[in-house]
């Protein structure tokens, strides 16, 4: 007979999921490379006397950002508002709809295939039509953001809800669990990590959607600012807006990742 092993020895206590040394190295490496590239950019622009309207130097971009700070903040807020509203609207509609689709064979065979087919349509191409239908305010931008976020979230949610392992469903059935119990205790928590994958994809699309919406026709927002400043050869300002858009995108993405970390700590990480 095999000796009884102490389970504690099978899994040492100190095996944790701390960021490893290699993560730190990657972050440090990327930062240093970015700094080096920025310096190279500065040097090259000065060396070859590239005109500012064509390609401004990093220092010029920073100067212009400081000079136009109140405008930049104002336009950022508009874009951020459109992004978040569209994103929130998308969650509010796609998650319940995905639940309905998973639970209703009728919807699964009628609405869902159409939705999947519509996914191939470039949603941003609708932006001009939206301007035609609902004008140039913030609403059409929110609708574009909603549309680009809608598909990743609904597909991820529907996939997640259906991802319960078959033996687990058998177990639940053997206990005669109600549909509500199955949903609350099993299906929804199983779907959560999938939903967050969808949310992270959606939030990056969201910023793009808002900017495209602003390109088509608006009087505010960072997309509008880029359009106007390039047409007036104020290229450093356009770059400033671009920097802010990038930062906004990154912050939003990691914001979602942070919420994920808190809400679904069991989710696999990459």
């Amino acid at each position, binding site marked *: 007979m095999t000796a*009884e092993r102490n389970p504690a020895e099978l899994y040492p206590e100190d095996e944790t999921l701390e960021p490893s040394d290699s993560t730190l190295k990657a972050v440090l490496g990327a930062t240093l490379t970015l700094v080096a590239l920025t310096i190279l950019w500065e040097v090259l622009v000065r060396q070859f006397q590239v005109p500012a309207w064509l390609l401004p130097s990093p220092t010029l971009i920073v100067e212009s950002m400081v000079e136009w700070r109140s405008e930049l903040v104002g336009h950022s807020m508009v874009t951020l508002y459109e992004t978040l509203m569209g994103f929130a609207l998308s969650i509010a509609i796609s998650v319940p709809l995905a639940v309905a689709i998973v639970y209703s064979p009728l919807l699964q065979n009628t609405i869902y295939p159409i939705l999947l087919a519509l996914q191939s349509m470039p949603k941003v191409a609708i932006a001009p039509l939206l301007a035609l239908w609902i004008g140039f305010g913030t609403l059409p931008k929110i609708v574009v953001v909603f549309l680009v976020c809608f598909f990743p979230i609904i597909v991820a949610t529907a996939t997640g809800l259906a991802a319960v392992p078959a033996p687990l469903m058998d177990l639940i059935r053997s206990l005669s669990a109600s549909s509500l119990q199955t949903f609350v205790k099993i299906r929804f928590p199983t779907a959560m990590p999938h939903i967050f994958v969808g949310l992270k994809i959606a939030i990056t699309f969201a910023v793009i959607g808002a900017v495209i919406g602003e390109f088509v026709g608006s009087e505010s927002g960072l997309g509008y600012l880029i359009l106007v400043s390039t047409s007036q050869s104020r290229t450093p300002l356009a770059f400033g807006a671009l920097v802010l858009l990038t930062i906004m995108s990154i912050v939003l993405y990691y914001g979602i990742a942070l919420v994920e970390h808190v809400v679904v700590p069991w989710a696999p990480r990459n």
Partner: protein
Amino acid sequence: MSKIHIEGLHKTYTSKHGPVTALKEVSLSIKQNEFVTLVGPSGCGKSTLLKLIGALIRPSRGTLLFDGAPLLHPTRDVGIVFQEAVLLEWRTVIDNVLLPTEILGLDKVKSRSRAMDLINLVGLAGFERRFPRELSGGMQQRVSLCRALIHNPSVLLMDEPFAALDAMTREELGFELMRIWDTDKKTVIFVTHNITEAILLADRVVAMTPRPGRIARIVDIALARPRTIEMEFTQTFKSYSDQIREVIYHGTGASRS
């Protein structure tokens, strides 16, 4: 009265290539607190038979009595362990064990103390606040066993529960299961494709053959309890093993793979 009485049970599935007979003319009576193993190659219908007993699927024809009454719906008097532990990743060990009690609406305080007893019984004391991802495969399967036992069912259905584990852990868990069964007697129906495991655990081994799935031979195992690993090397054990191998491999002309 037998705990589970099966007579002339058929199960037919419809597939793309027409109907497939998973089980044909299966008859078997299982006594209260008997430890029965179902052994056979893939496709012999052993898992199908287990699912039928759990009322997870309906028979196509035949009689299936549970405590003398026809089995129409899943009964709470059954606990199930699968090949995969299928624990809920977001729940701690103890909360995983408690899942069935929440669904069945059992008393929280009593359930909790029973869960702790079971966790201690399978040697996981001190691990009740851990999450499944922190446990080895063998430990996860122990948790899954506790979950199957928490509502104190009289029948335990086990579908190749140790098949995904390494040979050492498998053996260890087999003896542990027998120890638990010895202290808290239940009717156990245990599916495996491992003949040695089937004999070592069982009061009776039901050897099944595929195409169509049916019972080829039932072997009474008269080895004393508690069973030990040394019994595997006795002549009696070998003769049981031969009887089972004979019907499984030669009875159907299937290759010995």
